[in-house]
């Protein structure tokens, strides 16, 4: 795997995130969601002249980039910021690291007999 393809890979991963953030309305939605808690579409449109449909569409773009996610609360659909995106990547790496620690401990036992 050449360094070139590696760079291409991570750029490809980041491009949708920056594209999703490159819009004033979506940035506003993100800033609201960043304040914490799960918010309904009505709450997001309250006090603005943005339509429900437009917000729904924007949320779709943000969700595709992995920046927000929806959760069902009864009959209502709520949206929240996905701060766990990076956190999850970090935790899963930690898990794999632990698996390596376990595997290497087994290797140590094996070769040091």
């Amino acid at each position, binding site marked *: 795997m050449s360094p070139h393809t590696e760079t291409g890979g991570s750029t490809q991963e980041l491009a949708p995130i920056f594209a999703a953030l490159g819009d004033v309305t979506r940035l506003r939605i993100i800033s609201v969601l960043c304040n914490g808690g799960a918010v309904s579409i009505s709450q997001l449109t309250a006090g603005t002249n943005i339509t429900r449909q437009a917000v729904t569409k924007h949320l779709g773009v943000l969700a595709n980039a992995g920046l927000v996610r929806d959760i069902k609360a009864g009959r209502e659909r709520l949206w929240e910021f996905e701060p766990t995106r990076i956190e999850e990547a970090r935790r*899963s790496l930690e898990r794999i690291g632990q698996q*390596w620690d376990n595997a290497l401990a087994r290797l140590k036992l094996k070769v040091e007999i």
Partner: protein
Amino acid sequence: MISPTDRIDRKILLHAPLAKVWNAISNAEEFGDWFKVDFIGKTFEPGQKIGGHITYPGYEHLLAEMEIDKIEPQHYLSLHWHPYAVDPNIDYSQEPTTMVEFVLKEVDDGILLSVSESGFDRIPLSRRKEAFRMNSSGWEEQMKNIEHYVAAH
């Protein structure tokens, strides 16, 4: 910039002769013994794929496949694989792989083995989540293994 979530690095000092450590890394059967994959009757060849069932309790239904990259005798071995290939119903062959590298270095009191796995940032996040869920149930299994091991020794 190196992303903090892209790679894992480990170093371990093994109090054993170089030949023995190299054999445990480069002989597929021996590798499978500690890595917990059934590679009985198989060999590592540069550029070749090798597959076997995981022998780790609770994961026996999974097939571990790797592609051996380089082998430099007594010193270096690298391979590629799909680190989160945890669902037997999904074809991972078109997805990006991570690269695992083993480097052996002779030091005063044994062999310093460096292991790195890199390329995680290329793996789709959805796969990482999957692996994380798999792993949380795997822990209980692991604790049982330790109990059994301690009880038997």
